[in-house]
């Protein structure tokens, strides 16, 4: 189980299958929320995760297994809903308040 300290998270990548549709949408929403923390949020296809520099991966549950296969050592946060997801809200909370973030 990978984990990372919230203070060390500078780059987040949101992954989806093509890296052009849903991940862009989620990344833009998240980028807005994290702007004041100066954390950059990019998007990528799952198969390019390994080549995309990141501290933390955000991916939908449907693709989570492939994401974990691609980058087994990275922290992979899984979400279910593209709007108003509790896990994403928790992530933002954790990034704002500090502490340790681990897979889930």
């Amino acid at each position, binding site marked *: 189980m990978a984990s990372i300290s919230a203070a060390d998270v500078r780059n987040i990548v949101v992954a989806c299958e093509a890296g052009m549709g849903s991940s862009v*949408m989620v990344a833009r929403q998240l980028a807005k929320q994290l702007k004041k923390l100066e954390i950059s949020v990019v998007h990528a296809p799952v198969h390019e995760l390994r080549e995309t520099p990141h501290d933390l991966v955000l991916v939908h549950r449907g693709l989570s297994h492939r994401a974990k296969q691609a980058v087994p050592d990275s922290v992979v946060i899984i979400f279910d809903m593209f*709007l108003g*997801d509790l896990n994403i809200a928790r992530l933002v909370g954790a990034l704002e308040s500090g502490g340790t973030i681990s897979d889930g």
Partner: protein
Amino acid sequence: MSDFIPSGTGTQAGWRAGLQKIGGNLAGMVIPNIGAFIAWGLLTALFIPTGWLPNEEFSSMVGPMILNLLPILIGYTGGRIVHGQRGAVIGAIATVGVIVGTDIPMFLGAMIIGPLMAWILKYIDKVLDPITPVGFEMLIGNFSLGIAGMLGSLLGFLAIGPIVSAITTVLGNGVSWLVDNGVLPIASVLIEPAKILFMNNAINHGVLGPLGVVQAEETGKSILFMLETNPGPGLGILLAFWLAGPKILRGSAPGAIIIHFLGGIHEIYFPYVLMRPLVVVAAILGGATGVATFMVTGVGLVATPSPGSIFAYMAVTPPGNHLGVLLGIALSAAVSFVVGWFILRLSKVDATEADFEAAKKRTKDLKAGK
């Protein structure tokens, strides 16, 4: 947003991840090139003899684009996924062999030979790299790619092209049989559940799209572009969740409707169905209704509407087909809505309670900082 939606647990493994990976790679070769498909689709819709503004000179670009440009782009992208820029170049070279060896749009052939030749080149590079003397990198690099590329184009011309051509013919005949016998709507039984499992791109761009362009090239339009991309069922389902779904999901449904129907990001409604799996019945019935309507009214699209937004749909609908297309979308939305509404109503009482408990537990966990 005031209400956050609690997440499930666990990851998804096994055959689904495997299938997704294969399908994802197929879709990964097509989706980055959708812009070129749109340019071709618009040229076709506007300038072919049955288009909005028939123009013989402009329409002369339609053939070369679909037969040459689009397959080469797919082979190029497929090669790039496997072995970077060198893979992309050899993928493009070999795709030409596949194209010239046949007379149909060779999307499937490009999807095979592009990554295959890139994979072979990757191994050639691996062997040559350690034995290349200093200063000979460029010479050996260029000629290994050139020679392997030439052989790859021969392989494409002699083997891959004819084989894929035969397979495409068989699959195409199968689809024609389904259409002629009026059983094409049954395809929704497979397509809609697979969509919900995030295989939407694999099905559309990996299978239906390549078959659709063959048909579109012959007859000017294809119903195959509409089987997976119809935004109607998702619209009906989201409406049903908005009006009859669990309270916690209702708040986000209107936003999801806009993103789904206007923006064309279908992924947004899959999680709703995954939370109430029985609703997939509504998706299937709505999808089948749409396909049946498209079939009866005899409509098709000139290219894949991607993303599956109502705007993309209207843009690739050929003249005279708009009524049937809109009717099919509207009817499938209506059927999905009614069926979904009943399913959600009937399973409502206990579900809402369970949800509420789960949500409460989640909130507690959240507060405890877990």
